[in-house]
């Protein structure tokens, strides 16, 4: 049980000292998965045998001195990232048996680094949700309280790391799908700058908003994984041609004089008082380190969620047109002609929330409504981006709560789509503006539920964002891990 408590970089150190092998690490995690999975349900597919084989390969890399910074460290992968010949389902009936014919670029990087993949994790169907309750495999549970959601859409990845079933995981974030579950499960999650990480092989939800990012137990582990994931990819024309940055290098620098903006709009009514007090403590901690705290306004924040749900669903309605039963996935037996087959394939394959978003997005793009909805949302997006541009003239980073409340209970919001959408209220702005943002634990509520604090930085300033998070983590200390009696 000892190995699973350690961070990825601590494990990496033990590997280098030959005090442990990658096989032993993978075995420890597989044992943990077996013990807690019936309670937590983080995974939808386990790849035990391949993980052990990859661990042996990693051990050989370490012996041959060809290892890199995360060689031998196992990882869990969200089930919307294509893994060659390993089922990739988006937790949807429409592709529940899909075997990708290629690896996503991030998967290629993970394999080349010698990181054993433990399995594929649960998510809301096509990443559309904030609780994993729309998954066809049933929801994942929050390891801190099994009656509560782990957040979503990358809830399985977050739950896996929080439950110590994996030291690291990958998720995707379109409107908060990494940061919100990280906050609700008390771990670190990063949404990188749009274009920092290749999206090739990520099954698209909203292409102008989607980014892949890491989940980890602490800031250093997350920084190490982000370093591995980042980089230009000729297969994703939106990935940025940049020099590689080692995000570990910058951690631990003095934050004296750092200008930290506190946007007043994020502390308005409706926020849980314990969330507020924990985040205010984080702000105080930064001030004690010598940071300059500056109150700031992002005046269009209140319009972000409305703009987000139009942009995201419009793009989704187009992206999900490819699921038509022709080349892969489910095909309906109602097939007297092709159009009938398309309509019934999609009716049988998609769940209610995915259908709702396809209809909303198609409507927002349709003739007669385009100007009032889609175009209006794109213009609002400009105003939101300008808010950040203005703010970052005055401050280096912004600090806010990640979510308005701690983890909610199953069934609390899934009957009311709008209530569920509102849980993304603090996270969507970063996707609309393309800037990096991350969540890290700020503390626990009196009920023992994690609270997340969010840091925003200007585009490609992940180094400053991570260094701020690192300072904050040092000040707050570990919130520990859920007891999760087994």
């Amino acid at each position, binding site marked *: 049980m000892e190995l699973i408590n350690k961070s990825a970089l601590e494990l990496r150190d033990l590997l280098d000292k030959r005090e442990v092998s990658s096989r032993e690490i993978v075995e420890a995690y597989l044992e943990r998965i077996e013990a807690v999975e019936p309670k937590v349900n983080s995974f939808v597919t386990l790849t035990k045998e391949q993980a052990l084989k990859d661990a042996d390969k990693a051990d050989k890399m370490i012996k041959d001195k060809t290892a890199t910074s995360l060689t031998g460290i196992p990882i869990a992968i969200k089930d919307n990232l294509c893994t060659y010949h390993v089922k990739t389902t988006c937790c949807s009936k429409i592709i529940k048996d899909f075997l990708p014919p290629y690896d996503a670029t991030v998967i290629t990087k993970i394999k080349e680094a010698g990181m054993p993949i433990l399995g594929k994790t649960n998510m809301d169907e096509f990443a559309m949700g904030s609780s994993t309750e729309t998954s066809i495999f049933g929801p994942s549970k929050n390891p801190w309280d099994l009656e509560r959601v782990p957040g979503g859409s990358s809830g399985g990845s977050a739950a896996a790391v929080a439950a110590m079933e994996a030291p690291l995981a990958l998720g995707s974030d379109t409107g908060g799908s990494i940061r919100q579950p990280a906050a609700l499960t008390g771990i670190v999650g990063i949404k990188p700058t749009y274009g920092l990480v290749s999206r090739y092989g990520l099954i698209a939800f909203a292409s102008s908003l989607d980014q892949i990012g890491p989940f980890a137990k602490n800031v250093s582990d997350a920084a190490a994984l982000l370093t591995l994931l980042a980089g230009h990819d000729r297969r994703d024309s939106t990935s940025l041609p940049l020099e590689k940055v080692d995000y570990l290098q910058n951690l631990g620098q003095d934050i004296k004089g750092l200008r930290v903006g506190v946007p007043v709009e994020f502390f308005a009514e409706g926020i849980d008082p314990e969330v507020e007090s924990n985040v205010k403590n984080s702000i105080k901690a930064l001030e004690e380190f010598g940071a300059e705290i500056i109150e700031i306004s992002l005046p269009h924040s209140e319009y972000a969620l409305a703009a987000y749900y139009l942009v995201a669903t419009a793009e989704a309605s187009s992206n999900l047109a490819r699921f038509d039963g022709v080349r892969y996935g489910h095909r309906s037996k109602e097939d007297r002609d092709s159009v009938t087959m398309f309509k019934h394939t999609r009716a049988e394959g998609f769940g209610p929330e995915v259908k709702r978003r396809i209809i909303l997005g198609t409507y927002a793009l349709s003739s007669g409504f385009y100007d009032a909805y889609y175009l209006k949302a*794109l213009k609002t997006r400009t105003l939101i981006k300008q808010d950040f541009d203005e703010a970052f003239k005055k401050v280096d980073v912004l600090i806010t709560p990640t979510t308005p409340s701690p983890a909610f209970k199953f069934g609390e919001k899934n009957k009311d789509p709008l209530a569920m959408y509102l849980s993304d209220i603090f996270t969507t702005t970063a996707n609309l503006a393309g800037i990096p943002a991350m969540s890290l634990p700020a503390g626990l509520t009196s009920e023992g539920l994690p609270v997340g604090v969010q840091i925003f930085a200007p585009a490609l300033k992940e180094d400053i964002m991570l260094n701020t998070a690192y300072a904050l983590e040092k000040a707050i200390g570990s919130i520990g891990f859920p007891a999760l009696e087994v």
Partner: protein
Amino acid sequence: MSLIDKKTVERVADLARLHLTEEEKEDMTKSLNEILEFEQKLANLDTDDVEPTIHAIELKNVMRKDKVEESLSIRDVFLNAPDEAEGFFKVPRIVELD
């Protein structure tokens, strides 16, 4: 006030090639009205002189040399095909016979 009626939901579902049951149509009309009600707040915003942002990061067309490279194997291409014949994806009839 109703922002979207059942008839419009039917028309949009047809555009999206999505068959909906009667119950789904009722349900969808109700929930979309609630969501569109929420969306009305955007109407309060003056955006007359604002340019739309489609991508947050400025994008340019990316060109590459048009040369033959290794691609997916035929086996992998058809690995997930619901129906195939002689190296083609087989689909139901598209053209009306009469």
